[in-house]
């Protein structure tokens, strides 16, 4: 094999860091942009929790500093309208500018080419373009915080007609329009990523890397990419419809009779309000799987590596992700049980949603099966992986309750929902992300993160998270609506107000704990211990390269001889077997064969 095709790395600053086509650099661009938004979105959460615990009192310290913003008044209080803006922007930022960019933009970009043994993604230029669509979107959404009237305030779901009308006070400002534009750009960035990753995984796998030898992280990215490719364009279309409603005066989501004021100002009506919810959730239910599947993949790798055992039921893991994908396209109606729908449709969506619990359950039992009887190495990444597992179980179980229409009609739009998705997205996905950083940081930056700080961060986050979010289940059952700014206005919520105070203080702890992570990240980047190539004694191809990884990843395209999870193989020279180790050895034996197959 010759190395003729290795181009030298670009030498100019511009091509190295700005318009870079190197998947590792693009991954880092996504990463740092997302970190910035993690801070912004996190601060917004703190502001909201302050208001919910102590409605109407000025936010200490931050209030005065931020009083120039639309959602804080001159005395440093969160205004009622401002609360709506905070809820909206917190959700939007965390989903579209933090979690998806980190999972797909950062981890996907970084790991996929390495895991398939390629030197880059299939279309490096389009990959760069994807980030350069994401960045303007980031600028737009951030700028919307400062426009007159403030940012969007109709919720991250932007239901019509609330978000659709420009003549009423609620969504009159430019905030909502900027929101739509920003999401449109993010959407296309995501589509470009999706088809690039799919092509890479399908077409650029190294010799010997059959489908049965792909690490589960990369399988998860594969399924995620299908969602991105096929569901995101539908979101883009929905955004266009709302955008023309706002800019050109069409009435896609505005019926004739309900809004005479708008009809008088040139609206024809004739639209269908519920259509927004259908189109939006057709995308956004798959999107919640975009938010969790890569996390599941990361957790699978962490758990197998540190249990020093092959993953239990590799094929079942892949099959369950595939069926989550199939079902994921036909369950969107479970967000609309209360919006009004035919009982037959309601039942259909209820059953299909409950079916999703099956593949989720298969995954959980397979993770547990992997841990069973293993000698676990309790490293920081493993602690995060185990946290993912336990939090995902709780979030998945609450999902089942909500899937049942009779129950959901009671708890819809309450804090029970807030608890559910935070258990999955924060408790699940973010723990997997933290674990992923502790695990792959040496590959990304050539140094180890500080293990002690990492464990401290993981423990504090685990405690803070559960103290903050578990009580929300009770709040929801007590009838505490989500997205309200002043719970003390409602008599029936007075008895649970102390719980709100407790939750807020736990949330402050949780927020503060994240500073440990950020400190650890940047401190380790400059001063961490230099990493050897394979610090965790792991199998997959990225660990066969030096740390940090050279420009073109592999100086020789690897040939793959093993599955990704051959740990503790009887008779092997070490308790791990790198995927490209040529000796066939006893790897074909049944004990180690769990990760094999083509």
């Amino acid at each position, binding site marked *: *094999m*010759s190395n*003729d*095709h*290795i*181009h030298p790395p670009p030498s100019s600053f511009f091509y190295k860091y700005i318009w870079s*086509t190197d998947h590792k650099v693009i991954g880092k661009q996504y990463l740092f942009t997302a970190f910035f938004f993690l801070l912004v979105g996190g601060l917004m959460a703190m502001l909201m929790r302050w208001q919910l615990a102590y409605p109407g009192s000025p936010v200490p310290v931050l209030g005065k500093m931020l009083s120039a913003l639309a959602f804080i008044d001159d005395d440093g209080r969160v205004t009622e309208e401002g609360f709506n803006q905070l809820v909206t922007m917190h959700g939007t930022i965390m989903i579209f500018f933090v979690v998806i960019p980190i999972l797909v933009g950062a981890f996907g970009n970084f790991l996929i*080419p390495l895991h398939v*043994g*390629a*030197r*880059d993604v*299939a*279309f*490096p*230029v*389009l990959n760069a373009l994807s980030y350069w669509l994401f960045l303007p979107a980031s600028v737009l959404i951030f700028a919307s915080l400062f426009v007159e009237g403030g940012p969007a305030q109709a919720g991250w779901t932007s239901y019509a007609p609330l978000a659709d009308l420009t003549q009423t006070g609620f969504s009159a400002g430019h905030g909502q329009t900027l929101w739509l534009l920003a999401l449109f750009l993010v959407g296309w960035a995501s*589509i470009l990523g*999706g*088809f*690039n990753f*799919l*092509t890479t995984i*399908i*077409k*650029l796998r*190294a*010799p010997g890397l059959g489908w049965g030898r792909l690490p589960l992280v990369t399988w998860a990215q594969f399924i995620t990419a299908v969602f991105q*490719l*096929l*569901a*995101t*364009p*539908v979101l*883009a*279309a*929905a955004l*266009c*419809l709302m955008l*023309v409603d706002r800019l*050109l*005066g*069409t*009435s*896609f989501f505005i019926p004739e009779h309900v809004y005479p004021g708008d009809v008088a100002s*040139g*609206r*024809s*009506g*004739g*639209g*269908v309000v519920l*259509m927004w919810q*259908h*189109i939006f959730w*057709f995308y956004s239910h798959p999107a919640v799987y975009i938010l969790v599947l890569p996390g599941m993949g990361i957790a699978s790798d962490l758990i197998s590596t540190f249990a020093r055992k092959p993953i239990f039921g590799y094929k079942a893991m892949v099959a369950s992700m595939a069926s989550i994908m199939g079902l994921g396209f036909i369950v969107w109606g479970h967000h609309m049980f209360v919006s009004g729908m035919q009982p037959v449709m309601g039942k259909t969506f209820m059953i299909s949603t409950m079916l999703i619990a099956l593949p989720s359950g298969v995954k959980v039992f397979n993770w547990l099966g992997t841990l069973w009887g293993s000698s676990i190495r309790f490293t920081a990444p493993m602690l995060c992986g185990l946290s993912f597992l336990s939090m995902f179980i709780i979030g998945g179980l609450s999902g089942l309750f909500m899937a049942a229409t009779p129950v959901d009609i009671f708890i819809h739009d309450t804090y029970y929902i807030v608890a559910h998705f935070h258990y999955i997205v924060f408790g699940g996905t973010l723990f997997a992300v933290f674990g992923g950083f502790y695990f792959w940081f040496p590959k990304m930056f050539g140094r180890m993160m500080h293990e002690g700080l990492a464990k401290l961060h993981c423990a504090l986050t685990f405690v803070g998270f559960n103290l903050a979010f578990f009580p929300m289940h009770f709040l929801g059952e007590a009838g505490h609506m989500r997205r309200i700014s002043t719970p003390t206005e409602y008599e029936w919520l007075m008895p649970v107000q102390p719980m709100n105070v407790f939750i807020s203080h736990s949330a402050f702890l949780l927020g503060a704990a994240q500073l440990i992570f950020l400190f650890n990240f940047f401190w380790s980047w400059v001063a961490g211990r230099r990493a050897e190539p394979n610090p965790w004694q792991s199998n997959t191809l990225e660990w066969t390269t030096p740390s940090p990884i050279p420009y*073109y990843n592999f100086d020789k*395209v690897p040939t793959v001889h093993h599955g990704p999870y051959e740990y503790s193989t009887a008779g092997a020279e070490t308790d791990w077997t790198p995927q490209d180790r040529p000796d066939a050895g006893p790897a074909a034996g049944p004990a180690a064969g769990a990760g094999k197959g083509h």
Partner: protein
Amino acid sequence: MYQPVAVAAGDHAQAHESEHEVSKFGMWLFLASEVMFFAAFIAAYVVLRAHSRGAFAEAARELNVVLAAVNTLALITSSLTMVLAVGAAQRGDRRGTVRGLAATIALGCVFLVIKYFEYSAKFHHGIYPSTNAFFGCYFLLTGFHGLHVLAGIIALSILLVVASRGVFRDGYYTPVECTGLYWHLVDVVWIFLFPILYLLH
């Protein structure tokens, strides 16, 4: 666009073949997302139409079927000339490629010019996207389709310049074929839009 960095063999012919396959595959995937994009619009059209069938039928009568039929013909013919261009590029026939591309561009322009006249006639009669739900759909669907035609024309024009320099030879014609795939999709979308907007009364 594609850099054959992952191709193990040093053999160039093989690199090209694999590059060709990868690019084409990527294009197909991209087209799948385009299909979903237009499908969502068409679904919205179906829902709105089901809500006000009479009004839709009435409004549709205001459209100019003859112009649209000419446009349909222009686009279908342009798909044919595109196929010819791809075939010529595959054979390394420079003049054939240039001719095929030029014809395709010309027909695309015919489409847009006719569309321009259709639009301005509507505006002239005071019909805008906000007039009613039907015209909302009409302008949205044909507008986005028109943008795709425009993007196609731009891509084809770039190819035309490249092709005239004789770049496409020795079996290298990937960009022509990929752009061709895109162009056919734009054509197919129109084949759906034409009946649902102009013919369904």
